Structures are given as structure tokens and as C-alpha cells.
């Protein structure tokens, strides 16, 4: 009896799966775009903010080539293995023609080869590690890359904060943080003309909560600034502990500091933290920026953030490519995407280079009175 029931179950499931397959193959009545973003886990805030932007863009532009667009979201759970699985699922089960994602360079680097093998183009919103697009002709991104971001913060520390000695605490589990720490070090060494200007270099792992040992080591080296690339929650806890251990020097970071959680968790302790990011509502760069800010405020009742803006741009970049390709063929979309030129996005004018990267300006923000305030805009050379 039990065996019989189990057999029925298996048959039923098989029938269901094959029906889904038929349905997917037959429906050329919509354009399916996949999104893989971290909706849970250590990077959840980044993924959720990005998704807000994608949603907003879809509401504004629900059709392409006369067909409705369906956005299919898969949560990659801030996990590298899940990210690869998510891309596989989007391609094989949902049969998407293009993919958007993912916040977290490591996640993008894990999903990238899968998309490349299946020949489905991906538009990254905010993965900034150079390796995401390098050697992958199916991966593009709407943001700048870390050699630039590292230089921006090194320059800022050197010029604006007068720093000559710096310490680095990196999240060693994240390609993003390790890469950015390295580019910061190179740029800072060049600026100070001193190969020993990074006087303390140490690490932690995503999700660690006690940083007192690393901070005690850094405090002892007495740097002018501390560069601490990592994700918002870890960084907020880290800076909080630094302040309670009596470290008074400025803390610096990258675009992953931009999340409301950074301020909520850090409270008064993160006041005066500087970080670079892609975009600020206080410095609109194109007519599209102003339109985006107005739309976002109307829809979500708060000031927009970088990641929503990049998600918004990514969706529009993908639709733009589909329109120019004139079909939902992934290869045709890829070719159109590679030729993206002078696209007017909310975060700036986007032209993709041979690697599929955008060259854009960066903004430096500071936490002041519990808010992110614009300090500086840095243009690429």
C-alpha cells in the first residue's frame, strides 16, 4: 500500500514536471528576465534594495517588443554555492533570456561561469570585483570596478584626511573585500611613495562578531585611518567595537557600507565613517537620475539608495539590449548588450568597454547625524 502510494506520488510529480516543461516551451507570449540576488543572509539588505529598483523599473516599463516582461527572482541566500544553483535554475527551469545580478562580487563570480556555459547574458548591478567580467564574454555590469574604487578611497584618505599611515581590516571570505583591500593598498602605497604605508593588515570572516583582537592589533599600530572593506552588518559591528576600544581615527569603506542597517546597528558609533559608492540622490548626474529619485520617493516613501538606482538601471539596460536585438534570443541580446553606448541611466551615462565594465564617477559619503551625506564626487581619469 505504502509502496503503491509512493509510486503514485512519483508519477504525479513526473507528470507535473513534464507539464511545466511543455508550458515553458510553448509560451512565447512573454519575455522572461531572471534575477539572482541575496534576499537573505549576510548581504540581504543589498539584494533587497537592488530588487526595489528592478521592481520600480518594471512597473515603469512592463513591456518590450510588444510582449509583457516577467521578472523571475531567485534568492541566492548570500551563498556562493546557492548563487551558481540559482543561475542554473533560472536558465534551465525558467528559461530566461537574460539575467540580472548579483550584489556581492563573490556571488556573481560563482554564477558567471554557469551563465557563460549556457550562453545567457548577465547584467551585474553592483559586483565591483574586476574578475566578475574578466574572461567572461556573457557578463556585463552597470557599475565601476574596484581598482577605481580603491583608488578613490586611497586618494580621499591621502588628500582630504591627510593620512600617511593606514591600516586595513578585510573580510577575507569575500572576493569583493579582498580585492578592494588590495587595490586600496596599491593606490595608497603609490600616493605616499612608501611601500610600508600600510602599517597593519588583518582579516575577519563574514559573520564574525568579535573583532576585538584585530582592533587591538590595529590600535597598537596607531594608523591615521583604518580601511575596512566588508559588508554593512559586519562593518557596523566592527566600527562599534573599535569605538568602545578607544580607536578614534576615521574608518573608511566601500559601497557595501551603504545600507540603512549600517546606521541602525552602528548608531552613534558609525558617525564620521567615510565610504565610496556609486551614486547619491544629492548629486543627480543625468535627467534620468531626477526621474528615478521622484519615482522612488513616490513608491517607497524614503530617499533612494545606490543599489536601487543600479537595479533600476540594470533592468533598463537589459530591456534596451532586447529592443536593439529585436528578439529574445540570448545570443542576440548578448551582442546588443556588448554594444551598449551612451545609455542614460539614473547612476550616470553608461558605456560598456571591451570587458563589459562601465566607467563611471564615484561619490564619497559620510555618516552624519544618522544619515548618509555627500562629501565628494570623484570622476574617473
Amino acid at each position: 500500500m505504502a509502496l503503491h502510494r509512493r509510486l503514485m506520488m512519483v508519477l504525479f510529480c513526473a507528470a507535473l514536471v513534464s507539464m511545466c516543461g511543455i508550458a515553458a516551451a510553448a509560451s512565447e507570449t512573454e519575455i522572461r528576465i531572471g534575477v539572482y540576488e541575496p534576499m537573505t543572509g549576510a548581504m540581504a539588505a543589498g539584494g533587497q534594495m537592488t530588487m526595489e529598483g528592478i521592481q520600480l523599473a518594471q512597473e515603469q516599463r512592463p513591456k518590450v517588443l510588444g510582449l509583457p516582461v516577467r521578472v523571475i527572482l531567485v534568492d541566492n541566500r548570500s551563498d556562493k554555492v546557492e548563487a551558481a544553483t540559482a543561475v542554473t535554475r533560472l536558465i534551465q527551469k525558467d528559461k530566461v533570456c537574460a539575467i540580472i545580478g548579483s550584489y556581492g562580487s563573490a556571488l556573481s563570480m560563482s554564477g558567471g561561469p554557469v551563465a557563460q556555459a549556457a550562453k545567457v547574458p548577465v547584467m551585474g548591478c553592483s559586483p565591483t570585483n574586476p574578475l566578475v567580467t574578466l574572461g567572461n564574454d556573457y557578463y556585463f555590469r552597470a557599475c565601476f570596478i574596484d581598482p577605481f574604487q580603491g583608488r578613490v578611497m586611497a586618494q580621499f584618505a591621502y588628500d582630504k584626511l591627510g593620512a600617511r599611515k593606514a591600516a586595513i581590516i578585510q573580510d577575507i571570505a569575500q572576493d569583493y573585500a579582498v580585492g578592494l583591500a588590495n587595490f586600496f593598498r596599491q593606490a595608497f602605497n603609490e600616493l605616499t611613495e612608501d611601500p610600508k604605508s600600510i602599517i597593519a593588515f588583518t582579516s575577519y570572516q563574514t559573520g564574525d562578531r568579535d573583532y576585538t583582537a584585530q582592533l587591538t592589533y590595529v590600535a597598537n599600530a596607531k594608523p591615521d585611518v583604518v580601511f575596512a572593506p566588508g559588508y554593512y552588518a559586519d562593518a557596523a559591528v566592527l566600527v562599534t567595537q573599535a569605538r568602545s576600544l578607544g580607536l578614534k581615527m576615521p574608518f573608511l569603506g566601500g559601497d557595501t557600507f551603504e545600507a540603512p542597517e549600517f546606521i541602525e546597528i552602528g548608531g552613534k558609533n558609525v558617525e564620521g565613517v567615510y565610504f565610496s559608492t556609486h551614486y547619491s540622490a544629492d548629486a543627480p548626474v543625468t535627467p534620468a537620475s531626477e526621474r528615478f529619485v521622484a519615482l522612488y520617493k513616490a513608491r517607497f516613501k524614503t530617499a533612494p539608495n545606490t543599489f536601487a538606482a543600479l537595479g533600476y538601471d540594470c533592468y533598463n539596460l537589459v530591456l534596451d539590449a532586447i529592443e536593439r536585438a529585436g528578439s529574445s534570443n540570448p545570443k542576440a541580446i548578448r551582442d546588443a548588450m556588448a554594444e551598449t553606448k551612451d545609455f542614460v541611466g539614473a547612476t550616470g551615462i553608461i558605456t560598456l568597454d571591451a570587458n563589459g565594465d562601465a566607467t563611471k564617477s564615484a561619490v564619497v559619503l559620510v555618516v552624519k547625524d544618522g544619515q548618509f551625506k555627500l562629501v565628494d564626487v570623484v570622476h574617473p581619469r
Partner: protein
Amino acid sequence: MTLEIFLQNAANGITLGSLYALLAIGYTMVYGILRLINFAHGEIFMISTYFAFYGTAIFALPWQVAFVVAIVLTALLGVVIERAAYRPLRDAPRISALISAIGVSFLMANLGLVIFGGRPKTFYRPPIFQVPIELGGVRVVALFFVIPLLTAILLVALNYIVYKTKTGLAMRAAQWDFDTTRLMGVDVDRAISITFAIGSALAAVGGIMWGLRFAEINPNMGLFPGLKCFIAAVFGGIGNISGAVLGGFILGFGEIMLVAFLPGLAGYRDAFAFVVLILILLVRPTGLLGDKQRVKV
């Protein structure tokens, strides 16, 4: 390394170690009575922080009240989990209960994601615990004194309950043989429920201290503290309450000192904890204070 820096690191180590110790006690207690490794301990710990969080954030309770309510609710949660997931398997092979525990752990972590959301929340930290104190160049916050003190009080109280009270006698009897204990007129189910209530309440105390120390809580936070405290408990000799405290302190201290002396290896401190676990199991399978005959892992 100067003396001052060493002392600062020692203070860091004591703070972290006492947190581990606090969590390890609950772990080891359940094991000691039931011979069950309660893998859901980390998730019970996680949920307790959310109880406290919602108490202060949504119901606007004063923090003292919110914390007590959180501890009580967590104790109840532990009892419910035992009823639902472990009691039906009490006569099944031990491995079934272990797998059930892993299942409960995953279930709660994922329920947490659905109910609490994936984005982290900020735990309310009363300023009184964050008062900075400087002693001869060593900087700590008031919490530095609270956590070890609490651990010590709970250690004494637990040893009293287990070794001096009738309930404790019932627990210790149940640990040997359920049927024989029942024949002696002891309500085994009650003893086990109380064990789970106490174990979960300890997880809640640990969770609240964790929240006060680190401010950030999220649905995945139970995993690593859970594993670390499991290591601490095994290190000290699983089932032995004083051993768990000792194990927790040594683990916390070791982690801090590893980073202090070898900052370049700071990223590998979790690996350090697991290497310690392997070494302990190789050299002293029953842990530092473990009883040679009784433990059968």
C-alpha cells in the same frame, strides 16, 4: 607585545570566552541528561534574541521586562520542541533523535527567515551596559563584568539544581535509565521537560548577552555560535557543566590570542576552533573534565 596589549587581549578573551561558556552550559546540560546533542540549541539562542528584540521594539516593554519575558518564552519553546521532536523518538535509535535535532535546527532557521525577514535587526542595548571603563590602559565596557559574573552565578545555580535538589536527582537518574527511573516513581517526562526548559533559558540568557555585546541579530546567527559552543562543550567534556564553562573560556581565549599573536592568520580563527576540536577528540576523546566511562559519543 607589551604587557598592556596582552592585558587588553586577555580582557577581550575573557569577554568572548564567557559568552561561549554561557551558551555551552545549555548545550552540555541537555546532553548530560538525555545523551542527545541538541543541534537546535543555536537556533533556540537565535529565536531568544528575536523575542527580546520584539519585546523592546514592538511591544515597547522596558528592557528588564522584555529580557525576562524572552527568557520565559524561550524556555517554553524548548519544552515544546522536546515534546514535538524528541519525545516521540525517545525509544528510537539515538541517531534518529540526532537527525530530528538537525531537522529542528534547519526548520527554525528557515522559519526565522520567513517570519523575521532576511535583513538584520538591531538589538536594543541599554546604555548602562555600554559604559566605557578604563583600567590601567585596558579598555572594556561594563558588560565585561556582567557576562562572567552571570556565567559564574548560573554555574553555581545549575550545580545546585542538578546535585542538591530532588528535580536534579530525577534528572541524574533519568540519565542512566528511563525505565528503571520510572519504576522508582520518578516522572521522567517532567524531569526531561525541566532540563529542556533550563537549557533553553540558558540559551536565552546567552542570546541576550550576545545581543547586548554585538547589537546585530539575524536569522542565521545561531549557526556559528552553536557550533563553537558545541566545540566548547566537547572540549570541556560533554555532559559536564563545569567542563563546558572551562571549554568556553579556553576557546574564546584561544581565538583572541591566535589573532593577537598572528594577525595575518586572523581570517582562519574558525578553522582554529575546529582544529582544537579534532585534537581534543584525538588526544582526549572524553574532553578535559569528561567522565571516561559514561560518555559514548
